[in-house]
């Protein structure tokens, strides 16, 4: 029975943390609503020209709309640089169409092979950064869709001279497959909750690389992209380096959407195993808090470790129900946001992309999977990213994985098993 009480206490601790995360999300999103008038109101705000860098690799869900949304910004002067590694990338055809559709926009398609580092996204950004015309640069991933006020809402933070980087809160939408539903539930609860919690209560910058606005001078001062070319978490490291240079890292409350519609479960598992390894290498012991902060997983452990009795099962069901309700509430807070309805009105988001209330019932299943994934980084230090395998070291520093040598048989064995299963 002691085991049950131990896990009961840990679960209550986790639920308390989850409650704080919801509170952080609520206050953060409320602030965005309250600050709306100030953003593009009567006060004159300088709007400097911005170079938007869009690194592309393959087809993301909703790619055309995502790229089009960045072309429709209500902003005086900006250029867009779509950066690809080769002409055979299927995204190339999509960006050609976007450029043809908006001939009056300042759009550059840059196709250049760059092998400077091990991080493929940074390799994609290095040539684009070289040709960027303006002092302000925005790195915007290809899998996000934004409303027309996005640029104005983040650039206003740059008016303060000590601000070095502005990132955004990300929410997952869409979901026509189980993998996508899991991904969106995780983005909207754990990821969004953690980012808001760290920003609000611990004042720790937690930069999500899907949207990063910086000045060239500040980026150059921390060594430019070359300084992060071999790290997996380039976003986090850039944020950390900015802070080390006494520059503020701001979390803009402007929500941007990551559309995930047709993800397979395997893709969900791959991404979160990779992200888990990354957080383990960066966070060290604090990584344990993620397991404690997973109340659903913790509440199910007594069923396995003690006994599947009425009390243990009822407890797990109760905690799962609370988690479902909590995730539903977060979903409600997200859809109340102004720019959500703006995207719907503009026809950029169709109603099918809204969260179906039934999907929230998958939240406990997703949390159980995440609980099991948590252990993977403790036994594996390699990541496979865009087809390449790397060894991940401290602060997510990547090094090439040896394909020969004494221990390399493990990777070959893993490959053989994976190929067989595929």
């Amino acid at each position, binding site marked *: 029975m002691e085991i049950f009480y131990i896990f009961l206490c840990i679960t209550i601790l986790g639920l308390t943390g989850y409650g704080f995360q919801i509170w952080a999300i609520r206050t953060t999103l409320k602030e965005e609503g309250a600050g709306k008038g100030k953003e593009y109101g009567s006060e004159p705000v300088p709007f400097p020209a911005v170079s938007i860098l869009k690194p592309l690799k*393959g*087809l993301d*869900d*909703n*790619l*055309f*709309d995502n790229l089009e949304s960045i072309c429709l910004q209500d902003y005086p002067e900006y250029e867009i640089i779509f950066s690809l590694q080769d002409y055979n990338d*299927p*995204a190339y*055809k*999509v960006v*050609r*169409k976007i450029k*043809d*559709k908006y001939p009056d926009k300042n759009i550059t398609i840059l196709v250049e092979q760059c092998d400077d580092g091990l991080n493929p996204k940074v390799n994609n950004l290095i040539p684009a950064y070289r040709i960027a015309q303006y002092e302000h640069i925005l790195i915007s991933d290809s899998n996000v869709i934004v409303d027309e006020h996005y640029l104005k809402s983040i650039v206003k933070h740059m008016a303060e001279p000590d601000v070095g980087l502005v990132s955004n809160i990300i929410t997952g939408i869409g979901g*026509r*497959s189980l993998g996508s539903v899991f991904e969106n539930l995780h983005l909207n609860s754990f990821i969004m909750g953690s980012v808001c919690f760290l920003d609000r209560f611990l004042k720790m910058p937690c930069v999500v690389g899907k949207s990063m606005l910086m000045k060239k001078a500040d980026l150059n001062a921390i060594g430019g992209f070359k300084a992060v070319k071999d790290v997996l978490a380039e976003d986090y490291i850039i944020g950390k380096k900015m802070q080390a240079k006494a520059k503020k890292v701001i979390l803009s409350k402007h929500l941007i959407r990551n559309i995930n*519609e*047709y993800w397979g479960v395997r893709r969900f598992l791959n991404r979160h195993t990779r992200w888990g390894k990354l957080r383990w290498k960066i966070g060290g012991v604090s990584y344990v808090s993620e397991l404690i902060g997973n109340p659903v997983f913790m509440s199910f452990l007594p069923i396995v470790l003690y006994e599947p009795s009425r009390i243990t099962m009822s407890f797990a069901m109760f905690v799962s129900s609370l988690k479902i309700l909590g995730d539903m509430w977060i979903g409600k807070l997200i859809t109340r946001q102004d720019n959500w309805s703006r995207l719907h009105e503009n026809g950029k988001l169709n109603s*099918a992309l809204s969260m179906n209330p039934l999907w929230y019932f998958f939240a406990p299943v997703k949390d159980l999977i995440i609980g099991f994934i948590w252990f993977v980084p403790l036994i594996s230090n390699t990541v496979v990213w865009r087809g390449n395998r790397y060894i991940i070291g401290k602060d997510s520093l990547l090094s090439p994985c040896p394909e020969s040598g004494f221990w390399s048989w493990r990777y070959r064995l893993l490959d053989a098993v994976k190929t067989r299963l595929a």
Partner: protein
Amino acid sequence: MLLCDFHIHTKYSDGSVELRRTVDLFGQAGFDVIAITDHVVNGDSSFGKLAHRFRFTINEQNFAEYMAHIREETERARNKYGMLIIPGVEISKNYISSDKSAHILLIDIKEFIPACWSYEKIFLEAKEQNALIVACHPHHSSETATRDTLFLWNNRDKYAKYIDAWEIANRDDVFNVISLKKYPYIANSDFHRARHIYSWKTLLNCEKNIDSIKQCIRHNKGVAITLFRN
């Protein structure tokens, strides 16, 4: 080169994605030309009767609605994605024996053609409507869930003169016999589910209009195939 897929099903027959969403899937992925080709199933066999019973087929009653919906989507796709949509059907003669079964794409069809007609009558009517006639998955396929449709290949000496092109590749399968016979070819996805978008496709070196596309396929000049992967 135009990136094309001429074999796409929607919820009008046995596809799992509704027409509008299908158009968006291909548009978002940068396609230039697609043909919507839902099944028109024969009603003179037990398989065909089941398809009619569960409405996995276009019939004379809903054909006008089907065409009107495609026209509406054609307009939307042109404005939004610069993508051309061609209306079509897949005449599906399904029998217990694979040797008797055949599927035929009629691309740019104008009037309804029933699948229970004889092959000659279907081909002549399609020619009358200036539709493109494509023999689909004409040889043994690797998919265990689908039945082979071998009738046209087995009777190629009789019917090849009516057929404008043969599917040399369908979804994940490649039919090398088409290449050996030097028949005109195209490659398609036989799209039923979202994941089928990643499959064999046709590349055409011609203008983006229906007449040029049909001519390009019939003459089989400037036609290439590609395995579309992410």
